[in-house]
């Protein structure tokens, strides 16, 4: 089940081959949903589920898909899965779906999905594709959560909506950094993560 090669497929995207900080994919949603931790976490889980299942479906169909319309087929599979996820959230996790609102629909536009389908699922067996999907989804999620952690802490003084910076600090003149909530700081935070990551992995430097 988990041979050495499969382990590499599953764990590679977490660090050495991370979709966000190494391949620089899915940056747009990393900017959009990371002002608070909770939507970032649900987004990470939703993307992981969608990319894993889309990978499996495309991998199962890979020998039947006509080459000329393969992108369209991938898009249809992804869009259908995202709509189903959205409907299920609305029916059984209404509060969460309310918080994510439009972002669930935006999963369709996440480049990681199309990237994995095109680069991996079209040429690999279902089980490996599933692991690849989970690995890339989690790799994406880790970065999202790290970025959201700093943005919510410094921008709103809260984590998961709970106040963590004591009122006393505010009385002494501490202020939330409003800039952290705005999209540019997400980009700068991602850049800082890339910086730390590259300086620890010399082989990624160019």
């Amino acid at each position, binding site marked *: 089940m988990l041979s050495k090669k499969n382990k590499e497929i599953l764990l590679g995207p977490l660090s050495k081959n991370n979709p966000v900080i190494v391949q620089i994919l899915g940056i747009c949603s990393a900017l959009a949903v990371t002002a608070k931790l909770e939507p970032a976490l649900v987004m990470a889980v939703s993307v992981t589920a969608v990319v894993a299942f889309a990978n499996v479906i495309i991998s199962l169909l890979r020998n039947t898909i006509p080459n000329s319309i393969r992108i369209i087929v991938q898009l*249809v599979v992804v869009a*259908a899965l995202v709509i189903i996820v959205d409907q299920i959230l609305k029916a059984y996790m209404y509060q969460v779906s*309310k918080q994510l609102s*439009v972002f669930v629909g935006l999963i369709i536009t996440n480049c990681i999905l199309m990237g994995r389908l095109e680069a991996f699922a079209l040429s690999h067996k279902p089980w490996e594709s599933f692991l690849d999907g989970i690995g890339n989804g989690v790799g994406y999620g880790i970065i999202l959560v790290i970025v959201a952690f700093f943005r919510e802490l410094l921008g709103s003084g809260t984590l998961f909506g709970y106040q963590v910076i004591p009122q006393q600090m505010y009385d002494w003149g501490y202020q939330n950094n409003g800039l952290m909530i705005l999209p540019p700081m997400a980009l700068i935070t991602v850049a800082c993560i890339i910086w730390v990551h590259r300086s620890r992995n010399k082989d990624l430097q160019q």
Partner: protein
Amino acid sequence: MNKQGNTYTLIYTSVMVIVVAFILAFAAIGLKPAQEKNIAIDKMSQILSSVNIVSTPENAQELYGKYIDDSYVIAPNGQLTQGESFHLDLAAQLKQPEAQRSLPIFIYTDEKESHKYIIPLSGSGLWGPIWGYISVDDDGNTVYGAYFAHQGETPGLGAEIDKPPFQKQFQGKHFFINGKFTPITVEKAGQKPQNGADYVDAVSGGTITSKGVQTMLQTCVKPYAKFLESLNSNQI
């Protein structure tokens, strides 16, 4: 069969589209009752929030049944008449000519038998629709509580309108100044409206959303002015 040929491609797409359409249709129809129930419960919980009652999805229905009466609407002449408010769409009613409107209203009766009148609001923010409920004391003037929600305002900025710190500001504000209908305005911190209306502080960084709230208060409460005024005069 030639997998790269046009015939194969055409058949493949047709089959795929039909299969996906069926799956999605089944998912949508199968989940619809659960979704509609959630939406109704959520609406009840929002209405309860506007009279400062905190509810959970589990007890919202029970609390709503206990406190809120939705069996009245407001006729064009500003009088309360029998009618069903819960499924009445305010935005659609506002589009109709004034003489044909019936406006939804929810009446909250607390333990001391005093009434609050809850007015639904709907408008638009920066990215999409915003809506809310505002409750008015039985003097037809003083705000008892307010609740706002949004579909997709920026988290941390415009989205703050659905948080208590913004909503609590509305308590105790007035809709009538010197007997004249002057809707509550939303102002940049430190500024005051020129017409002497009551005001609250806007969300910093959420200017367009805050303006949306202000516009919503003007356009949605104005049609109720006649009714609120009649409550007003009953008092005197």
